[in-house]
């Protein structure tokens, strides 16, 4: 039984991520990815988004930006806002507590 480490990851290039809604600017990694991997997007991905080049390593289940996100721009997942970017996030960047703040938890970093 696997625990946190996914042994299915494909080295040298191909990772997969899931877009829950066509308006999302983030996708959820279905496999872990490392810097330089190409991420194939599945789910409700709009046609202009085919593949994303990963700019950093991202664990499985964590999020990758599929478009560049400006500071203070809304982060959209499931077609709804899940927070705001606290810094600029390039497409292919890792989206998590280090660069997103909650709109519902005032003052918290997340």
């Amino acid at each position: 039984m696997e625990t946190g480490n996914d042994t299915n990851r494909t080295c040298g290039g191909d990772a997969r991520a899931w877009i829950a809604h066509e308006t999302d600017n983030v996708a959820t990694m279905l496999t872990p990815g490392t810097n330089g991997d190409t991420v194939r997007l599945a789910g409700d991905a709009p046609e202009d988004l085919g593949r994303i080049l990963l700019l950093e390593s991202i664990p499985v289940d964590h999020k990758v930006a599929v478009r560049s996100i400006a500071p203070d721009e809304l982060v959209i997942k499931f077609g709804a806002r899940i927070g705001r970017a606290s810094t600029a996030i390039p497409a292919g960047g890792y989206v998590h507590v280090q660069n997103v703040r909650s709109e519902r938890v005032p003052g918290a970093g997340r």
Partner: protein
Amino acid sequence: MTGEVVQGYRRPNGEVGIRNVLLVLPVAQCANELAVRCASGIDGAFPLLTTQPCAHLGEDNEAAKNCLIGWGRNPNAAAVLVLGIGCDAIAADEVADAVRETGKPVTCLTLDRCESWERVVGSGRCWLIDQARAVRGMVREAVDIADLTLGIKCGGSDATSALAGNPAIGGVVDRWIDAGGTVVFSETTELIGAEHLLMARAASENVRDDIENVVTATIERIEATGVDPRGTQPTPGNIRGGLTTLEEKSLGGVLKTGTRPIRSVFPWGGRPMGPGLHLMDCPANVPQLLLGWAAAGAQCLLFSVGGGLPARIPSLIGTNVGGIPLLPIVKILSNPRELDARAYFDIYAGGVLEGTETMDGVGDRIWQKTLATASGEHTWLERYPLQGIQMWELLVRGPTV
């Protein structure tokens, strides 16, 4: 008739059961042993044991009484034996009389009216044996799913349940409601951060206010313990699992409610009025939720699990007996990495993420399994050989004396 027909048991008051449970209902903990002894070895008899003491007050006793009546009235109960001592905080007669209004067979036995403990057990067993014989003669007939109420719940959630199982359930919920059925979601604590989305779906201003009020009251109750519910969510484990904000976590859960308007908000122990989507105000604690859905008259529950350790429990997280027979549960797994755990589930939804199945395809399998369950097909939990007895924890909001 909407055309969506299942085979169910029509009760005397017109409601529809999908199981024939001989429900043994002690009104207080002191009567739990009576219930176990009465039900022991009798086919279909189930003692619903709770933590109801004499030491609860006002609204908690009222809610517990509503639950007892609601369980008795649940259409999956074919006959109901109410048991008490005679000095109970909730009068057994009141419960029995309210359940009797359904027209189903009900009897009430209390120690104070019988000669002895053993007499209560003997009389109760005789009555249940007669009822078991009567139930064997009942036949299923074609009924409309408009007569059925579904509960929806997620637990052991991870990133995958929000991407596969929950949205697939959301599609089933929309379809169920469009066919005239009723759906009840709950877990008020899990709505914090997504309440604005639900309020936007309220069917009226009153419902909008009710949603806001139950979420606010929940936040205040948690804050009264010195904890900031917003500052502790998502949990460190959630963050390790990739969830970034409270709203992301809450949204993932809310996806299973589909897109239809929210018709009402009702309290734990209550029952939704009319078809459509309703919110039951209850925390996300599995035993209390199951009790609440059973009291609300729900006949079936869809339970979505992500992955990890919760997926590897063959029974049901939060219980040691796999739930309450009054409420058959369809278990749905999302995480493709939980290969060994798939055997513990009725539906594997992760094929969506693996690219082997569409969301509509998974939704259709959930739909078909739910209809089949309603027509009598057993779920995984109904087939699993469960061990043990559970004392069901009631929802208590006030002080105990």
